[in-house]
């Protein structure tokens, strides 16, 4: 069947953005929220129907000898660069985009629903800028959907920018608080810096391949890469450079080290936003980008290795930091970074050598799988965090402790999330993470071990957070505040839904749907890896239980023992300070200021100097006009004589 209706997934959110943005102010706040949520529900429905028709459609054209074809639903010329390079806007449906449609619409809808409660105070009164909030949510949904269905790399770039802006707007939603402003600015500029590389990458790539179109690029990756005729730049082939630059673009959005610094600060935004943008959808855009261009990357091992190293390092680095954060949202943010790095690594370890692209694509499949599951349980965790924060009005887990008996539902949901992310069967995380570890071992045992360690740390810090929030010690209710409690249904329902998904998602036969080449890939659990990873996870959990279940001195002792390490990790290894130094001390002080000074004083000075010279010259020669006839006549006479004499000298001699 045809996908003509698929345009609605873009049209509806865009319309909602304009509608809520322009008309919403006139409407009541509650209604705006409800309308937005309903519209999002419709979008959700459409997305599901698209995805389902795509995966289970009975159309013969879709699956040709076992290979699932990608469908080009729409493709409109938008901007003509050259005769060859034309930017098109359209909708491309293939396994990953269909899968992303599901993820995005699900999370987005649940967040819409959750925000109804979260963005209101205890008495259910919506707070200021409620309409703006929903308009921005719609805008973001539009941009994100547009990103995943992009038919060409330039459309993807366009929507990269769009999601960047909408995340800027949402992070800065509380625009009166300096922290929020600063965070939003930081997020935008850092991702913009990455997008710069993305752009350069596109420029190089498109110059040689003469196309933006994914289908054309994927049709024969080898020929696409060979268009550069083996030109090299500083030793590496041009294409390697292009792909690396494009990866940097993705790394910016996906908060890979060293471009990760914006994500923790981005937690200044409303928590549902963090759940939607900075846990589930936008931050995986980078992974999605690399997955899109996977066939090219696979052929350019140089670029691929960079992805691998960056990913693996980031995974460990972020996990290490997450172990010591006291702000639960920041801790979750770092765990997000680490998990996304996981996906990157998974992509990077897959190869086309050996068993060929199909078998080697295990990592690819695993990465997508993990992307899916992670989106679910990380959103769950964030929404739980949102509920908690909404209850205790604080991000610091020192203000929480022992909330278990106050907020049982939330507590259980959070626990499920933790189990899922820790990779305990039968929860979703186990299956995806397991595939990833298998892929890593296939690449080389080193990476396998490395990622396994990260998995252990993940289990540890997640349960650390869990215990610190819900157990550790009895919660003391500050006077003036009523005791925290579970929220109304609009907020708990999403938690429950997501918890359920996190439990069952693992059993989806993902390999049948999402693979590199569209052929189903049957996955057989690799028992040694599985068992080892589960054991490591259990160790991590046990450690966390030992240290944080009941109030005790052990953490502080450890802290004092490894004080240096602890503070370093707590301050995120001083990356932010480094950036601060570069931007403020170097660029601002050492470049901008001098240039401005130069402009005012040197260049302007020259212009003024010319003027002053003229006037002073006119003042200097005024004595010539002495007023006495005799001097006039003298000048006159001498002038005449000189005129004659000089000419004689020149002409006659």
């Amino acid at each position, binding site marked *: 069947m045809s996908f003509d209706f698929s345009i609605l997934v873009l049209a509806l959110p865009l319309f909602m953005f304009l509608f809520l943005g322009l008309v919403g102010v006139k409407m009541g706040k509650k209604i705006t929220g409800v309308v937005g949520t309903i519209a999002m529900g419709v979008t959700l429905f459409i997305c599901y129907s698209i995805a389902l028709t795509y995966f289970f459609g009975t159309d013969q054209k879709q699956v040709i000898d076992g290979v699932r074809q990608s469908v080009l639903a729409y493709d409109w010329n938008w901007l003509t660069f050259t005769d060859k390079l034309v930017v098109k806007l359209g909708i491309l449906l293939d396994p990953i985009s269909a899968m992303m449609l599901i993820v995005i619409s699900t999370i987005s809808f649940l967040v819409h629903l959750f925000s109804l409660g979260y963005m209101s105070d205890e008495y259910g009164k919506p707070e200021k800028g409620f309409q703006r909030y929903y308009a921005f949510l719609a805008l973001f949904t539009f941009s994100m959907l547009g990103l995943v269905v992009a038919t060409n790399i330039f459309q993807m770039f366009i929507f990269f920018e769009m999601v960047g802006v909408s995340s800027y707007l949402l992070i800065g939603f509380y625009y009166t608080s300096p922290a929020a402003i600063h965070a939003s600015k930081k997020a935008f500029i850092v991702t913009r810096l990455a997008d710069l590389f993305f752009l350069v990458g596109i420029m190089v790539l498109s110059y040689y391949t003469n196309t933006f179109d994914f289908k054309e690029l994927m049709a024969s990756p080898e020929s696409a890469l060979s268009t550069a005729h083996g030109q090299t730049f500083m030793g590496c082939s041009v294409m390697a450079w292009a792909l690396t630059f494009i990866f940097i673009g993705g790394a910016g959005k996906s908060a890979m080290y060293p471009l990760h610094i914006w994500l923790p600060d981005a937690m200044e935004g409303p928590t549902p936003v963090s759940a939607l943008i900075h846990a589930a959808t936008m931050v995986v855009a980078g992974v999605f980008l690399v997955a899109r261009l996977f066939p090219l990357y696979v052929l350019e091992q140089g670029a691929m290795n960079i992805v691998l190293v960056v990913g693996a390092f980031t995974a460990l680095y972020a996990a290490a930091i997450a172990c010591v954060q006291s702000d639960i949202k920041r801790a979750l943010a770092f765990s997000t970074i680490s998990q996304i790095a996981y996906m990157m690594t998974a992509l990077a370890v897959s190869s086309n050598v050996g068993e060929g692209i199909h078998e080697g694509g295990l990592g690819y499949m695993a990465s997508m799988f993990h992307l899916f599951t992670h989106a679910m349980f990380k959103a769950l965790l964030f929404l739980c965090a949102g509920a908690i924060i909404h209850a205790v009005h604080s991000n610091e887990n020192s203000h929480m402790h022992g909330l278990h008996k106050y907020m049982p539902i939330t507590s259980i949901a959070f626990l499920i999330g933790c189990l899922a992310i820790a990779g305990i069967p039968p929860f979703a995380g186990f299956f995806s993470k397991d595939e990833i570890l298998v892929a890593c071992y296939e690449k080389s045992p080193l990476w396998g071990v490395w990622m396994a360690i990260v998995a252990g740390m993940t289990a540890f810090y997640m349960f650390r957070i869990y215990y610190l929030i819900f157990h550790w010690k009895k919660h003391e209710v500050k006077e003036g505040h009523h005791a925290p409690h579970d929220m109304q249904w609009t907020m708990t329902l999403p938690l429950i839904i997501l918890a359920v998904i996190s439990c069952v998602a693992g059993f989806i036969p993902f390999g049948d749907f999402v693979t590199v080449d569209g052929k189903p890939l049957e996955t057989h659990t690799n028992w040694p890896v599985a068992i080892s990873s589960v054991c490591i996870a259990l160790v991590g959990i046990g450690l966390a239980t030992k240290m944080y279940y009941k109030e005790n001195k052990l953490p502080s002792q450890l802290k004092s023992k490894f004080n240096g390490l602890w503070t370093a990790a707590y301050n995120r290894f001083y990356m932010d300070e480094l950036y601060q130094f570069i931007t403020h001390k170097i660029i601002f002080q050492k470049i901008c200021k001098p240039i401005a000074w130069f402009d005012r004083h040197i260049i302007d000075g020259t212009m003024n100097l010319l003027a002053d010279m003229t006037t002073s010259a006119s003042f200097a020669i005024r004595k010539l006009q002495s007023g*006495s006839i005799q001097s006039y006549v003298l000048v006159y006479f001498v002038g005449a004589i000189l005129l004659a004499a000089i000419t004689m000298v020149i002409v006659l001699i």
Partner: protein
Amino acid sequence: MYLIPSLIMFGCGVYGFITRKNMIAILISLELMLNSVDINFVVFNRFLYPDQMDGMFFALFAIAIAAAETAVAIAIIINIYRVAKKVDISEITKLKF
């Protein structure tokens, strides 16, 4: 060669103009210059082109005009004397710069 006397005379005129203080004296040196030029005309006519009279006529016209000029100049000098009570040219420097 014919020029020498007239040029000397002209030079004297210029010198007188530039050095003298009294306006009458300056007027006289101006006359000197004009007349030296008249000499030129006459001499050239007489020795180089004896067969025509243009130079002579020109000299006559020049003399006449010089006379007129002197008349006007004298008038102005007298006026200045009336108004400012001075004939010293170095004091006539109100308008300057």
